[in-house]
């Protein structure tokens, strides 16, 4: 017995002995522990209390026993005052019911580890509340105490109170039910992160309306909630509570069950989106909401989430108009709903096939072709207006973003393929390579002749009679196409004819060369005939153009033509027939255009009555039937039409309107394309060519004004002036980076920094000295590095980048694999080794036989050759990396960083708030892409590497982000972090380099490399001294790099700042650096440099 044991009042001991021996055993073992912390007085009080507990009733000694046991457990956990309080609470409970007190004491050791001491009383009172002096309520209260450890860990005190009140309320109805609820709630709470009250509030409302449903609701919740993604659970409960509020809340538990079951069938990653869509419906109709969720799993098997959104949007519109119709839509009972799903499931979405079609087009065209949805082209406002039809502008093929013409996916895809082949066909078979002077192959050349006639007649008086106005005003043409179209007065008619003929030529070549496409081509051509306007409803000239279109779509058919002009029609069909032979050039199309134009310009555009038509079988007539117009006649007719136009403006005639485009052929704008490519070439050749005429904005405006390509656009879009087009076109064509923009953005004015050394108070912050080159000494503990992990984004970014760079990835992988060590290399001709090399042994034998001295080096051995490289990449993520590299697509976008500090911060926030996907690239994007390629390459050779980004604002705030820690293995987390790399603040390089150096120092690799990628000089608020703003930062950085070198770390700086040479010379005096001239080469160059550094 211990000393203290003896000092305990003997009377207490003897009293205790009256009870079963279990009690005194518990007491003694508890005393052993507790006596170490309590003084004698306290011990006596403690023992007395236990005794009084034991004496309360005949069975209460058990309560006392558990009191002794628990107190030994918690005496060290809580301060004495609370210990006393705890004991008294227990004693009070015991007065009501010893069993309850026993549960209280038993639960205490586990509860106390989680419960704040000051809540002890509240907690005990909860038990009190629940205990209603009946045996059953005692069971509930005990149960409450037993469950307390779990409850305390998942609920706050506030929530606990709500919960107890709820239990209390339900126990008034039925205590058994309350006990059930307690059990279920325990589970529910653990599955819910926050918002535990949501489930309680639903339950309490339920309690009032239909209390019997409460336990089943809770049971279902406890079972089904884990099936739903943790983040979505509160949202789901919100939906349920909305259901409750709505009038027809019939059966909440079963609704919950159904909805959650339905959700559980959906992949967790898209549950959020489904719930989001459901929330949109909630305010309109709960019924529709539940139908939407219930049908979702089924629908998802047919269409994907993106398509669900389209379907949902459609349904939402219906729902807003008519609730009942909407509900049946979401129940997928209305036929409209089914149709929508049907067409969505068979439609081909542009985004999904983009890569495939892009590569396909590249294969066909043999040049860089990009694919973009046709909306993009319209957005550029350079002359294209329809966003549904396919088109091309020379290097980009524009396709509609959704193809749902047919009921089968295969057909839709075939359509897309035909369309893209047709568009690429324009490139492959030279539609845009039109040369005015190149002779055609089928026809005799009239173009030059016609031009000569014009120039002759322009010498005459009142020449405007015979020469198109535009030709007189400005005889110089920018493109060959423009020169050609200038020959015509009615440019629209000429362009229409040219388009049909040229499209027909392309179609014929494709059908001959791509036999596999022929069938779908024919189907699509036939189908597009059905969308054509009724030929008989058109006035004469338009009807004849339409005739040409129909003929180009399907030969050997009978087409009605105006009887008056059947000869013209026959002639046209003969001209068109020439293109069935392979080898027709775009110049042939031009010649055909001349001939057809000469005929059609004679035809007045008059309305015809029904009996003025006759059917023409385009196949039947033979060559002899008709006398084709002579070349001379063609020229004469064109010039005549010119004169006629000038004289009489026939009132009977309808204004000629161009025919509707053939859907699969889309927009064809030869003049604009030639112009764009001419401009692009001009940009590339840097005007080396003296003869090349510089294209000015005025010239383009001129061209656009007269161009038929644009004329029809202008009609429909009155706001767009041709000068606006012109400047947009110029912008589109030039993608040169304006170097002036790259100069420093952050306010570089000197701010004198007050204050002394800093202390890193937070976790993961480090303090570094800074070099003051004017003082020639370090400023001690001057900068604080805050080391954080980069936030996590979407891992898709990683694979998408790899896909975009697939060509380079392959190359890099090969190159890096060659760098990879052959871990075991057989080394021959050694004096000693694993085994004798048989070749060398024979050689030695031969040497002995031939009498010369044999070599002793007969052995070989496998040598382990290992790369031993550790490298850290430091990415500059300062705000200036947000610079766009390509010409900004959206001219209104302001990338200028304001100079004022507060404005700057606001600007920065706005920047970062924007969506992550942009249509143009920024410096940071290239840095990110370089990182992706780098990781991909480094993983093949197994070098130890870390990737960090740095930025910061001020010396106490240098941010240092981990993208991949040097000791971390590559994982999805790293992929996700890359996605979130974004431009931040300023560039305080010194501390970042020092921190990276520290990290590298801890590595025991033989070669250590620090690779710095930046976009400009180091600069930051207060990173300067009066008068030497720029030098200060440069010198500190230099010092940091020197420190690294002293620690055997090879540093290398790569910068994309074209003006980098001036300060890098100082900064990297004897350290490798490189200035990238073309930022776009960053990923490739970075890997090359890395390879060079490490081999």
């Amino acid at each position, binding site marked *: 017995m211990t000393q203290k044991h003896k000092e305990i009042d003997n009377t207490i001991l003897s009293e205790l002995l009256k009870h079963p021996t279990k009690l005194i055993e518990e007491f003694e073992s508890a005393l052993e522990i507790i006596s170490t912390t309590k003084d004698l007085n306290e011990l006596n009080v403690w023992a007395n209390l236990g005794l009084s507990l034991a004496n309360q009733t005949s069975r209460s000694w058990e309560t006392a026993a558990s009191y002794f046991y628990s107190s030994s457990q918690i005496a060290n956990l809580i301060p004495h005052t609370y210990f006393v309080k705890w004991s008294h609470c227990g004693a009070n409970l015991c007065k009501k019911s010893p069993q309850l007190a026993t549960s209280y004491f038993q639960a205490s050791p586990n509860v106390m580890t989680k419960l704040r001491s000051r809540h002890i009383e509240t907690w005990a009172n909860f038990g009190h509340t629940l205990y209603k002096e009946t045996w059953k309520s005692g069971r509930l209260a005990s149960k409450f105490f037993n469950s307390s450890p779990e409850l305390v860990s998942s609920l706050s005190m506030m929530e606990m109170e709500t919960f107890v009140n709820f239990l209390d309320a339900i126990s008034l109805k039925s205590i058994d039910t309350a006990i059930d609820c307690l059990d279920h709630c325990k589970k529910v709470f653990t599955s819910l992160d926050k918002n535990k009250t949501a489930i309680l509030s639903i339950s309490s409302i339920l309690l009032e309306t239909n209390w019997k449903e409460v336990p089943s609701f809770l049971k279902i919740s406890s079972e089904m909630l884990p099936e739903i993604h943790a983040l979505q659970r509160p949202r789901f409960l919100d939906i349920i509570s909305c259901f409750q509020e709505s009038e027809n809340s019939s059966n909440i538990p079963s609704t919950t069950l159904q909805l959650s079951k339905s959700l559980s069938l959906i992949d967790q990653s898209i549950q959020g989106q489904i719930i989001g869509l459901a929330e949109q419906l909630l305010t309109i109709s709960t019924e529709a909401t539940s139908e939407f969720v219930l049908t979702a799993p089924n629908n998802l098997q047919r269409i994907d989430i993106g398509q669900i959104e389209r379907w949902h949007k459609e349904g939402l519109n219906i729902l807003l108009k008519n609730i009942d119709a909407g509900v049946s839509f979401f129940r997928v009972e209305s036929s409209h709903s089914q149709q929508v799903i049907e067409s969505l499931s068979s439609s081909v979405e542009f985004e999904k096939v983009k890569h495939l079609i892009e590569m396909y087009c590249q294969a066909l065209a043999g040049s860089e072709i990009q694919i973009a949805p046709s909306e993009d082209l319209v957005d550029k406002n350079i002359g294209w207006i329809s966003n549904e039809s396919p088109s091309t502008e020379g290097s980009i093929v524009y396709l509609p973003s959704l193809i749902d013409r047919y009921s089968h996916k295969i057909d839709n895809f075939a359509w897309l*393929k035909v369309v893209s082949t047709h568009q690429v066909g324009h490139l492959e078979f030279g539609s845009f390579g039109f040369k005015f002077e190149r002779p055609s192959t089928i026809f005799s050349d009239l173009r030059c002749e016609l031009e000569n006639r014009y120039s002759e007649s322009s010498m005459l008086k009142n020449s405007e009679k015979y020469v198109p106005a535009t030709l007189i005003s400005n005889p110089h043409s920018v493109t060959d196409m423009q020169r050609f179209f200038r020959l015509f007065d009615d440019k629209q008619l000429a362009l229409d004819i040219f388009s049909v003929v040229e499209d027909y030529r392309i179609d014929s070549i494709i059908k001959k060369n791509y*036999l596999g496409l022929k069938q779908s081509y024919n189907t699509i051509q036939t189908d597009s005939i059905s969308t054509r306007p009724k030929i008989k409803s058109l006035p004469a000239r338009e009807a004849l153009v339409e005739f040409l279109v129909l003929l180009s779509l399907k030969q050997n058919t009978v087409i009605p033509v105006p009887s008056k002009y059947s000869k013209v029609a026959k002639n046209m069909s003969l001209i068109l027939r020439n293109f069935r032979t392979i080898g027709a050039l775009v110049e042939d199309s031009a010649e055909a255009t001349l001939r057809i134009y000469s005929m059609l310009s004679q035809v007045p555009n008059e309305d015809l009555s029904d009996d003025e038509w006759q059917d023409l079988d385009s196949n039947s007539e033979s060559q002899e039937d008709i006398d084709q117009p002579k070349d001379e006649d063609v020229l004469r007719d064109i010039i005549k039409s010119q004169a006629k136009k000038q004289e009489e403006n026939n009132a009977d005639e309808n204004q000629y309107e161009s025919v509707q485009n053939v859907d699969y052929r889309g927009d064809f704008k030869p003049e604009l394309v030639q112009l764009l490519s001419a401009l692009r070439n001009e940009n590339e050749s840097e005007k080396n060519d003296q003869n090349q005429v510089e294209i000015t904005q005025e010239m383009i405006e001129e061209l656009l004004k007269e161009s038929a390509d644009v004329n029809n656009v202008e009609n429909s879009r009155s706001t767009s002036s041709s000068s606006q087009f012109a400047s947009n076109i110029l912008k589109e064509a030039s993608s040169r980076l304006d170097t002036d923009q790259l100069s420093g953005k952050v306010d570089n004015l000197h701010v004198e920094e007050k204050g002394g050394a800093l202390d890193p108070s937070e976790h993961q912050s480090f303090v570094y000295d800074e070099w003051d080159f004017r003082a020639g000494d370090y400023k001690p503990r001057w900068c604080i590095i805050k080391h954080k992990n980069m936030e996590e984004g979407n891992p898709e970014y990683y694979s998408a980048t790899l896909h975009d760079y697939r060509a380079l990835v392959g190359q890099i992988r090969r190159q890096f694999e060659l760098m990879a060590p052959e871990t075991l290399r057989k080394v021959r001709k050694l004096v000693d080794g694993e085994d004798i090399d048989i070749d060398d042994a024979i050689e030695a034998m031969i040497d002995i036989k031939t009498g010369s001295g044999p070599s002793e080096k007969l052995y070989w051995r496998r040598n382990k050759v290992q790369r031993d490289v550790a490298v850290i990449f430091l990415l500059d993520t300062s705000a200036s990396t947000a610079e766009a590299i390509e010409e900004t697509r959206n001219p209104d976008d302001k990338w200028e960083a304001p100079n004022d500090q507060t404005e700057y911060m606001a600007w920065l926030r706005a920047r970062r708030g924007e969506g992550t996907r942009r249509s143009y690239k920024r410096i940071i994007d290239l840095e990110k892409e370089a990182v992706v390629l780098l990781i991909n390459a480094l993983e093949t050779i197994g070098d130890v590497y870390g990737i960090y980004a740095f930025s910061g604002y001020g010396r106490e705030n240098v941010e240092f982000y981990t993208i991949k820690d040097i000791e971390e293995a590559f994982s999805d987390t790293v992929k996700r972090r890359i996605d979130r790399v974004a431009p931040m603040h300023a560039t305080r390089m010194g501390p970042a380099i020092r921190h990276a150096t520290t990290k590298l120092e801890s590595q025991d690799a033989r070669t250590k490399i620090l690779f710095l990628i930046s976009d400009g000089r180091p600069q930051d608020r207060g990173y300067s001294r009066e008068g030497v703003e720029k030098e200060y930062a440069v010198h500190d950085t230099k010092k940091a790099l020197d420190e690294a070198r002293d620690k055997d770390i090879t540093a290398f700086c790569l910068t994309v700042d074209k003006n980098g040479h001036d300060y890098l010379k100082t900064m990297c005096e004897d350290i490798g650096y490189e200035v990238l001239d073309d930022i776009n080469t960053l990923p490739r160059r970075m890997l090359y440099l890395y390879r060079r550094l490490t081999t």
Partner: protein
Amino acid sequence: MNTTTQTLYQSYIVEEYFLSEEPFYLPIGDEVELFQAAYEQKIPILFKGPTGVGKTRFVEYMSYKLGKPLTKVKKHSSQKSSLSRNKSSKNSGQNLPLVTIACHEDLTASDLVGRYLLQGDSTEWIDGPLTRAVKSGGICYLDEIVEARKDTTVLIHPLTDHRRILPIEKRGELIEAAEGFLLVMSYNPGYQTALKDLKHSTRQRFIAIEFDPPPRDIESDIIRHESGVNKQTADQLARLGEKVRNLKEHGLSEGASTRLLIYAGKLMTQGISPRRACQVAVNWAITDDFSIHRTVEEVISSIFE
């Protein structure tokens, strides 16, 4: 014991193997004239170009052609004279031997020159293929020279300059190359890496003839001749080849070679459907990349019915 043994195969001594028929080769540019001129002037030749464009076929063709010495090709002689053939000389033994050596990582100098072999108690010297070619005055064709070990250059250098000698170190001999000897190497710049590049001192001893995939019409003729398909199919195959090559630099490291297109044609003549033949002979042969497979698949289905 009187059973006669029948030889099931034909074996030749390396320098005595001659092509009995003229190999089919369609010149794309002036490579035939260049080769002839270089041969006359004893200038070594380096072939550059991707696999399957006909480098080996060309050297076979040239050795056959030059081995029929007819009217000897004179300098400044017109193309015509080189094509005229003296049939009587066909068996005159003037054939030009062609020794082809495929280089690999472990190919050492002694593999080329020759080595002593133990024979019973004595040793015997066996000439290597290069030595044989040097002695017999034929063309020695080193295929994929960058793969060979660096010590082979020791042999190449003296053979390729004015000396034209082959030192045989082990025997202490120098062999002067016979009159008709010429060294020809091939090398595929596609595989060029920092580690495996020809040194300039080696490289600049050769004139380089560049081989590119033939233009579509010529390739079509080649395919037609080699595989026996009709003109239309040959045209389609050539078109396919052209389109697939366009994908180079878009993830494809090497385009479809003429050889593969010929294989596809050969499969077709055996009754395999065109799409399937192209799939196995072209698409699956050139890459394992899924997205390229899909693309090529679409190109195939566009071109072939």
